[in-house]
């Protein structure tokens, strides 16, 4: 038996995992009955369904031929996710300028084409631009600088 | 020698700290003040906060901004207040439902009520018992009679489990010895829509937000849940007047709180400023137009109001099995 569709196999596993977690946590909620459903009814039902579907998709991966998975670029993914996370982590404590710079920096790491002067310039321009539009133009209550 | 130096350093630091603190108090306010509101823009809480803020700003000489931190029934705003320094620059403009109910209902509670101290009560809103236009009763007496004659037929709506509307209705049912089925909705809008469509027949609501519908007849007010009648529905008796619910006055309060450690002089100053803001005719007028009543008064008066409310609400929540969810 070999996996004919890696896509389906992995997807199936993910669905299975979500289903199991859903069931595990959901079992603590009250079920109620079909005519008086409690808060646990749908979670258990849906998690169970997801589990079965995950199993089905994974099972099918042994039978039906699928597309190969395109190459995964780990660096862009981690850098971009990291950049978004960094923004969230810094915006309240350190303000908009720092957050924008953090993102610009991480984005520069994400791609091979960076040119440092460009990066610095764009960080500055972006910060000013954002301050202009969001804080002054739209009046968003965003902290600009550290204090 | 070293020890002497260390002691001197320690003493200096303490002195500096004390001086800065006092200085900070004396200089209060020296920067922008933020009012956190636990609901999205547009509701009565938010509107009143935005009404009072500019007046406070004028008198304090610093910008006062309103920041919406909706979510978790006021919990996010509470968290924001408690995580900020206790220096009087972060206030929470809250309502009794956000201040009281989650601390009783949730286990663990999203925050501890005594981690906060009151600054000033701002307004309170009288409630009304509303009914669908198609309901076969138009006064409190008729409603009770109908409910007793037709048990298990009527439904009442609310803006959510544990909401003001829910609790008020439970209190009414408890005192009048009737039982209706609770149908919770996701907010006041859907609940009112359901009331108008007669999906639910009654609802406890606040008079202010219902006044448009009362005036054009899309809902009926069958009783005013306050001690005075209202100009919106002059012919409707108060619950107290009918004798069925003597002294029934389950009002909905709004006011400012801050962290409990906030120094007294700062709290006193804020209280004074809020009182003055509420005395401004323009502010008073807007609040009264919305069918709310201006409060003001000393900080401890506000605490009494919400603690009394907590004491009255706890037994109801316990009875409903809503404590410690």
């Amino acid at each position: 038996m070999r996996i004919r569709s890696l896509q389906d196999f992995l997807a199936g596993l993910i669905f299975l995992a979500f289903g199991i977690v859903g069931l595990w946590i959901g079992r603590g909620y009250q079920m109620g009955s079909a005519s008086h459903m409690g808060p646990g009814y749908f979670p258990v039902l849906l998690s169970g369904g997801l589990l079965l579907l995950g199993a089905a998709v994974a099972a099918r991966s042994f039978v039906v031929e699928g597309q190969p998975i395109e190459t995964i670029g780990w660096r862009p993914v981690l850098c971009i996710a990291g950049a978004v996370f960094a923004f969230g982590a810094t915006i309240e404590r350190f303000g908009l300028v720092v957050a924008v710079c953090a993102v610009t920096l991480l984005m520069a790491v994400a791609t091979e084409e960076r040119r440092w002067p460009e990066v610095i310039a764009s960080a500055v321009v972006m910060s000013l631009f954002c301050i202009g539009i969001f804080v002054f133009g739209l009046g968003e209550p965003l902290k600009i600088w550290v204090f | 020698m070293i020890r002497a130096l260390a002691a001197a350093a320690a003493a200096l630091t303490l002195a500096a700290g004390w001086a800065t603190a006092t200085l900070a108090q004396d200089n209060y306010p020296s920067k922008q003040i933020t009012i956190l509101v636990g609901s999205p823009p547009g509701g009565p809480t938010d509107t009143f906060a935005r009404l009072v803020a500019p007046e406070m700003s004028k008198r304090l000489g610093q910008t006062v901004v309103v920041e919406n931190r909706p979510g978790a029934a006021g919990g996010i705003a509470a968290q924001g207040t408690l995580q900020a320094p206790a220096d009087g620059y972060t206030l929470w403009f809250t309502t009794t439902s956000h201040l009281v109910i989650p601390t009783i209902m949730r286990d663990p509670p999203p925050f501890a009520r005594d981690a906060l101290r009151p600054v000033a009560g701002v307004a309170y809103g009288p409630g009304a018992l509303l009914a669908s236009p198609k309901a076969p009763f138009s006064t409190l007496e008729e409603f009770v009679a109908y409910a007793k004659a037709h048990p298990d037929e009527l439904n009442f709506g609310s803006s959510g489990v544990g909401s003001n509307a829910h609790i008020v209705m439970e209190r009414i049912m408890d005192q009048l010895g009737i039982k209706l089925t609770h149908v919770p909705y996701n907010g006041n809008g859907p609940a009112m829509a359901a009331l108008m469509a007669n999906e639910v027949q009654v609802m406890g609501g606040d008079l202010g937000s219902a006044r448009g519908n009362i005036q054009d007849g899309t809902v009926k007010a069958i009783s005013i849940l306050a001690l005075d009648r209202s100009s919106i529905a002059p012919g409707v008796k108060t619950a107290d007047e009918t004798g069925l619910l003597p002294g029934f006055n389950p009002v909905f309060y709004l006011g400012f709180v801050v962290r409990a450690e906030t120094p007294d002089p700062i709290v006193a100053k804020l209280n004074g400023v809020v009182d003055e803001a509420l005395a401004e005719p323009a502010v008073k007028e807007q609040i009264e137009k919305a069918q709310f009543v201006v409060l003001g008064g000393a900080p401890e008066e506000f605490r009494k109001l919400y603690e009394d409310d907590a004491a009255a609400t706890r037994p109801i929540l316990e009875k409903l099995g809503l404590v410690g969810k």
Partner: protein
Amino acid sequence: MAELFQHLSTGFGAALTLSNLGFALIGCLLGTLIGVLPGLGAVATVAMLLPVTYGLDPLSGMIMLASIYYGAQYGGSTTAILVNLPGESSSVVTCLDGYRMARNGRAGAALSVAALGSLFAGIVGTLFIAGLGPLLAGVSQRFNSPEYFALMVFGLIGSVVLANGSVLKAIAMVFLGLLVGLVGIDVTSGTLRYTFGSLQLYDGIGFVVLALGFFGIPEIMSNLEKPASTRSVMVASYDSLMPTREEVRRAVPASIRGTLLGSFLGILPGGGGILAAFSSYALEKRVSKTPERFGTGMVEGVAGPESANNAAAQTAFIPMLTLGIPSHPVMALMMGALLVHGMAPGSSIMVNQPVLFWGLVASMFIGNLMLVIINLPMIGIWVQLLKVPYRLLFPAVLIFCCIGIYSVNNSAFEVMLAAFVATLGYVFYKLGCEPAPFLLAVVLGPMMEENLRRSMTLSRGDPAIFVERPICLALLVLSALLVALIALPSIRKRREETFVE
């Protein structure tokens, strides 16, 4: 009829004053700008400008706020088409084929079709308000919990049709979406579900977080993983900016269908733009002779949903203006503004405040026209923007996403959450699992469950309520038919060819 003309002329008279035109223009510009920026929504902006309107006369205030709201719908499609970023939640559907059209060099055409389709829909929607307002409001009154439940069921089954690839995985994504939609407080019982003790998850995972995490950000990720040389940038030599005759021929009927669908769905409180857009897309796939080409850049996939969401944005005013029920948070804000002016929005507004009502209606016609005039020339500019080297463009796009997510609830948590969601979204993309059914399920799922349980409470546990009510029964029967149609062997076989986007 004559009465209608008279009303409209009163309305135009009020709306065509210089100051009211000015307010409409400001509103349209602001609305478009907000629509373009992802996450930043009409709600926050309207809320911020609300106090400004207290000093204006009620009609002017309403005109400005309303034009911000439906203006945002126009702007939202721009980023959806250009960079696969839904600016407004209802623009998610436009991403599906709109972005593909842009990749094929037809960005200009997609943008024009979206703008013109929206204009048409806006005008028709406004006509509905003018002519049929109270009647349609009456219909919406018949829609109670059981009917909503049936509508959600219908929508969810239909969402499988949205899938351009494996049906089994699409169904799994629907289930996942339903489950994720359950996160937060349960309306019917007050219990907190799947919140892991976090206050931030109390109200569930925000739609903006999920939409950007599954659409916008993974797109950037996948663009960056390819070396610059092989990156399929927008084709530099785009054919004309306007759609070809062939495209127009196909877009017009789609637009008409979308408009009708959207006009109806917009009236239902809670119906709204997203449902309208998704339904239109599903409808277009169903009636198309080449449904398998959806997802590759079919103009119907842009014309239909764009018209639908704009029509829904217009008719969403009906419940507010005729019944005093806000069907959208922006409406609630506008009602608040009216209350401040001492007017009670409700069934009496048409009669007691004719100038306000008809003036607003007239300004909607004007506003839609203004929006097209603003948006069409901008298309040329937007398309030029695509020529900017990607390495300079994508940081800006990402930053806008971040600010947008943050500004919805002033929540840094949601931004950090989005980082995780985006990673998951990327993984799903690589594994051929489609985000559209997932997102639709997240929106519809909680409403479906809420209405199901509420209907059962109302009927005291008796499931017969669903078959006793005609509209509800009809919708459920249609859902069953839909299942049969999907399950038909010939269609099933065609669907199982696995397409990867």
